């Protein structure tokens, strides 16, 4: 017979699979075998059904799909013979899970078998039910299981008890039915029944506080007695493990006692004696004994405080910790971690031993110990602990370095007592494991250095020294290069020397060397090289003597294959060659980076508008992946992702460009005479107007916004240049106040500024007349109301459209509670200001302004759906529609899908907060349910606008809304459901 025909014996198939040399051979055998089994299934072959399933179980274990055998399980279960049922149930548990619909069909067979006269068959059914039952089956079969808890044979009772656990976990409502039977099972002597009963009680306590109270009151004493009897019992061969009677039952009992004692002094008191007995009497030379001690310590730590017991427990852990067996040390660390919350002081006593464990050769122990050390650190011991950890960083193996570095950095950040210590430690970490440091860590270091003005010199010198010893650590090189670029002059002149520092002589060309090494090193990545280029540009003005050399280095990158480097090189070269007069101003030292913004950004708490607009920047510092919106910001700003998004006005661009905080512009002009760097920056800002920002902005914007597409920005520049001599005056004002004017002393004419980047800017031919760029539009008109939109754009920000909506009452009636709502798709962001009034007088009008930011500007047009609601003579009136046309963009009248319906609810209340709402577009029913459960928690929502999928029935929707009303205490909620037909009105 062909060994691979369906007649193969199970044994032969296993042999064939075993003899396979390669995975491909194995697959071939399995494929053939599966084909044969499929054929047998389709012929409804009865004789070999159980053999086929046995084969399938083996194939399943090997990790091949076996779903086609599922129905065969059911057939076997339904057969009458015990061996068939046996295999059928086993296959059911292995091949199926509770999520499969097939399982529904098995409920009936299970029910019959649970009532079978043969107790072994009952056992099979209970076991299967316990392993795979779904909530539905649990409801159907709970009465049978409940009855079986009192079955005559203990082997059935124990299985029924475990089966009950599954049932109460699936359907916690059923828990109360099981409390009494479970309590009576606790009085049994049979170990199997006891261990499962204890387990059932434990799980009952977890799902039902009622059960917890009941067991606490009625069973604590009994359980203590059971434990005591067992601890004192004589040798019982069947359950003995290394001289201890049934350690498994010991552990289960201790676990249940822990739950009963937690938070209840009386119950805790009741179990003190037995816990003390277990903790002192159990032998700790064998694993079984240690397992019990370990559990006992856990219980002592969790129940209500008893000083003596705690000391005992901590001592046991101390003994564990010094044990030679790694398993014991591991569990000791694990338990100490839990003990931290109870008695941190006691754990601190073992600090030295724990610290040794961090250096263990066993990765599991190392990791546990490190986690524990992390918890142990506080303000008082951060210095010695960090020192130890950093010293170990050197010796640790590569795979552990990542975790270790992470923990050290977060400890240093969290507990650092002073800045200089922080800088020192970070420097050590960077030198040792700089390649494992996450980006935000070295970003944070730069922010800290920038904020510590008295440590600039110290930091840059320390970094310079570190750079001399190692250049292998990428993030160290980055921070060093940034600091040398910013504080190069301080480095060379030994400014701000601290007492602890050794003097160091760095010449200007040494500093340039250091940066040059970074740029030439072939292992440097793009970010480092780009940062080095900027540093060079900055140094060129700090060190005039080296500027020729710097120019050479920059020029070498002109041929770089990497576009970013090439572009920077060309741009910087232009600045060096043609714009000497503004160079010094351009490469001024960065202003102090805002720590609050940075940490807020790290915590992800910045407003969404910022995160969406920087989302396109791929978060690469230095703007290597150019965000379309903020090219200038990235040009000179080190960490573009720290820059505020260009959302409000072009002024922000300049803020980023020159690193100037706009708020300084309002400072009194009395500082004009000051000569130090900071104040010079102030001056520059003060003497500039917003228009000037725009000029510079667009001059530097390197043509990333094509003039053809956003003619508005082009016209803005031109208009501001042409029609406003003030900007030129400002320009002159600027230069005359800035240090360059001292050298150059020539008034800067607009032409060179225009040409700043060699014609990269928009060409001046695109002159246009200044005036309203977009015609207004009547967005909605009915016999009683007209709504018109006026559009405008903010200069320099083509993404954002300002819309002024004017509502005109065409009727002789007064409209009260007027409410306008708008919905936009995801790529748009809508900001709705409050309306000028919520009462619309007869033949009068009110206005409301909104701001729409289009994240896909140029690709998608603006679209909007609107809804208007008001009361006329006490009667509610609604109107809605889609935006007809938003010139000059294309018209898209419907973005809601055809098969969707829309619903909204509005909370009645003060109109001022009407903008606090959300639009949701739900794709599936599951989302709908999810959304509503989360909505009920959002108290601050005033309105919600939903697209509802078709499979949610209207009645269900109404029901949900009404329950929402009750839960949220919203006594007035509008529910609007509109079908597609209705919407096309």
């Amino acid at each position, binding site marked *: 017979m062909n060994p691979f025909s369906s007649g193969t014996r199970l044994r032969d198939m296993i042999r064939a699979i075993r003899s396979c040399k390669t995975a491909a051979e194995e697959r071939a055998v399995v494929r053939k075998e599966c084909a044969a089994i499929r054929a047998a299934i389709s012929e409804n072959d009865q004789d070999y059904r159980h053999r086929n399933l046995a084969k399938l179980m083996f194939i399943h274990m090997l990790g091949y799909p076996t779903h086609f055998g599922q129905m065969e399980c059911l057939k076997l279960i339904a057969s009458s013979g015990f061996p068939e049922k046996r295999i059928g149930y086993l296959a059911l548990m292995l091949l199926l899970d509770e999520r499969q619909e097939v399982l529904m069909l098995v409920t009936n067979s299970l029910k019959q078998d649970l009532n079978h006269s043969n107790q072994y068959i009952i056992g099979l059914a209970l076991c299967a039910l316990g392993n795979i039952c779904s909530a539905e089956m649990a409801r159907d079969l709970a009465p049978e299981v409940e009855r079986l808890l009192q079955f005559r044979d203990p082997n059935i009772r124990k299985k029924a008890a*475990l089966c009950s656990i599954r049932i109460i976990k699936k359907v916690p409502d059923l828990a109360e039915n099981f409390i009494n039977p479970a309590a009576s099972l606790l009085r049994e002597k049979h170990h199997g029944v006891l261990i499962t009963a204890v387990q059932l009680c434990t799980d009952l306590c977890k799902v039902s506080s009622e059960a917890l109270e009941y067991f606490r009151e009625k069973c604590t004493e009994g359980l203590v007695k059971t434990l005591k009897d067992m601890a004192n019992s004589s040798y019982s061969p069947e359950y003995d493990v290394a001289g201890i009677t*049934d350690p498994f039952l010991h552990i289960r009992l201790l676990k249940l006692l822990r739950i009963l004692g937690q938070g209840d002094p009386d119950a805790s008191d009741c179990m003190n004696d037995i816990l003390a007995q277990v903790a002192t009497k159990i032998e700790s030379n064998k694993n079984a004994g240690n397992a019990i001690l370990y559990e006992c310590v856990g219980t002592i730590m969790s129940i209500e405080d008893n000083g003596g017991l705690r000391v005992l427990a901590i001592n046991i852990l101390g003994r564990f910790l010094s044990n030679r067996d790694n398993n014991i*040390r591991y569990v000791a660390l694990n338990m100490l971690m839990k003990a931290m919350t109870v008695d941190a002081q006691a754990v601190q006593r073992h600090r030295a031993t724990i610290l040794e464990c961090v250096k263990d050769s066993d990765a599991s122990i190392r990791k546990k110990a490190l986690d524990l050390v992390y918890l142990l650190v506080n303000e008082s011991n951060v210095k010695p602990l960090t020192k130890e950890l950093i010293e170990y960083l050197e010796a640790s193996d590569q795979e552990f370095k990542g975790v270790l570095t992470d923990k050290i950095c977060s400890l240093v950040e969290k507990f650092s007592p002073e800045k200089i210590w922080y800088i020192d430690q970070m420097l050590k970490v960077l030198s040792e494991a700089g390649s494992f440091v996450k980006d935000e860590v070295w970003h944070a270091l730069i922010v800290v250095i920038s904020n510590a003005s008295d440590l600039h010199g110290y930091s840059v010198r320390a970094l310079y020294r570190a750079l001399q010893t190692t250049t292998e650590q990428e993030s160290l090189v980055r921070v060093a290069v940034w600091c040398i670029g910013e504080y190069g002059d301080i480095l060379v002149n030994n400014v701000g020397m601290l007492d602890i520092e050794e003097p160091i002589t760095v010449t200007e060309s040494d500093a340039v060397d250091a940066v040059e090494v970074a740029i030439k090193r072939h292992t440097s990545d793009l970010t480092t090289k780009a940062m080095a280029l900027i540093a060079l540009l900055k140094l060129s003005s700090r060190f005039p003597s080296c500027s020729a050399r710097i120019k050479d280095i920059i020029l070498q990158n002109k041929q770089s294959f990497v576009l970013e480097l090439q572009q920077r090189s060309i741009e910087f070269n232009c600045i060096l060659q043609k714009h000497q007069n503004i160079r010094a101003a351009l490469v001024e030292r960065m202003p102090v980076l805002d720590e609050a913004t940075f940490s807020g950004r790290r915590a992800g708490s910045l407003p969404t508008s910022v995160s969406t607009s920087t989302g396109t920047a791929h978060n690469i510092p230095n703007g290597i992946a150019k965000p379309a919106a903020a090219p200038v910001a990235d040009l000179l700003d080190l960490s573009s992702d720290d820059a505020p998004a260009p959302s409000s006005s072009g002024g922000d661009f300049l803020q980023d460009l020159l690193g100037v905080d706009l708020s300084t512009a309002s400072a009194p002009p009395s500082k004009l005479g000051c000569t130090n760097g900071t104040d010079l920056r102030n001056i520059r800002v003060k003497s500039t107007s917003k228009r000037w920002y725009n000029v510079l902005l667009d001059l530097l914007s390197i043509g990333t916004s094509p003039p053809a597409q956003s003619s508005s920005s082009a016209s803005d520049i031109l208009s501001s240049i042409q029609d406003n001599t003030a900007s030129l005056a400002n320009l002159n004002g600027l230069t005359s106040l800035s240090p360059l004017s001292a050298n150059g002393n020539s008034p800067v004419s607009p032409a060179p500024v225009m040409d700043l980047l060699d014609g990269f800017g928009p060409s001046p031919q695109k002159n246009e007349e200044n005036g309203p760029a977009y015609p207004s539009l009547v967005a909605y008109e009915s016999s009683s109301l007209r709504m018109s939109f006026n559009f405008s754009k903010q200069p320099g920000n083509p993404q954002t459209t300002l819309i002024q909506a004017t509502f005109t009452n065409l009727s002789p009636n007064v409209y009260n509670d007027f409410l306008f709502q708008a919905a936009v798709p995801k790529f748009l962001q809508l900001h709705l200001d409050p309306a000028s009034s919520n009462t619309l007088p007869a033949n009068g009008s009110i206005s409301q302004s909104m701001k729409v930011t289009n994240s896909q500007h140029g690709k998608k047009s603006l679209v909007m759906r609107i809804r208007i609601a008001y009361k006329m003579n006490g009667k509610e009136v609604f109107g809605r529609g889609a935006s007809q046309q938003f010139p000059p963009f294309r018209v898209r009248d419907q973005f809601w899908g055809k098969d969707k319906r829309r619903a909204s609810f509005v909370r009645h209340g003060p109109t001022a907060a009407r903008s606090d709402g959300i639009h949701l577009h739900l794709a599936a029913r599951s989302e709908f349910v999810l959304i509503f459960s989360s909505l009920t928690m959002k108290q601050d929502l005033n309105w919600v606008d939903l697209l509802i999928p078709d499979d949610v029935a209207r009645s269900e929707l109404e029901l949900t809304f009404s329950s929402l009303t009750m839960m949220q205490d919203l006594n007035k909620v509008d529910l609007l459901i509109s079908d597609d037909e209705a919407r096309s009105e």
Partner: protein
Amino acid sequence: MGIRFILMVNKQGQTRLAQYYEWLTLEERRALEGEIVRKCLARNEQQCSFVEHRNYKIVYRRYASLFFLVGVDNEENELAILEFIHLLVETMDRHFGNVCELDIMFHLEKAHFMLEEMVMNGSVVETSKANILSPIQLMEKAS
């Protein structure tokens, strides 16, 4: 539910028995088994028997050429699981007489029957070897 899965794996890393007490898809299981086996088999005798992986804690023990791996949740007593593995091996020894990889391969269903008597839905049912084996012996007598 303490025990999430029980695996028996040979020295080459081939699975010889797999019993899961929570649902994972075939792909997830294959990936999980691969990762765990790689991690555990790389460790030496002196290192501890516990490995943390994803949200599981793996307690493993080696008997000759066979590794027994038990995945548990964070609440479980690791040492007790170690003891449980030993009980499982002793039980199999009593039935097969010094159990080896081939016994489990060729009597996969019996190994499962034993496991079924010992663990249900991730909790221990029975710790007496006689009680575990009696239904299996009964069935063998009948057939």
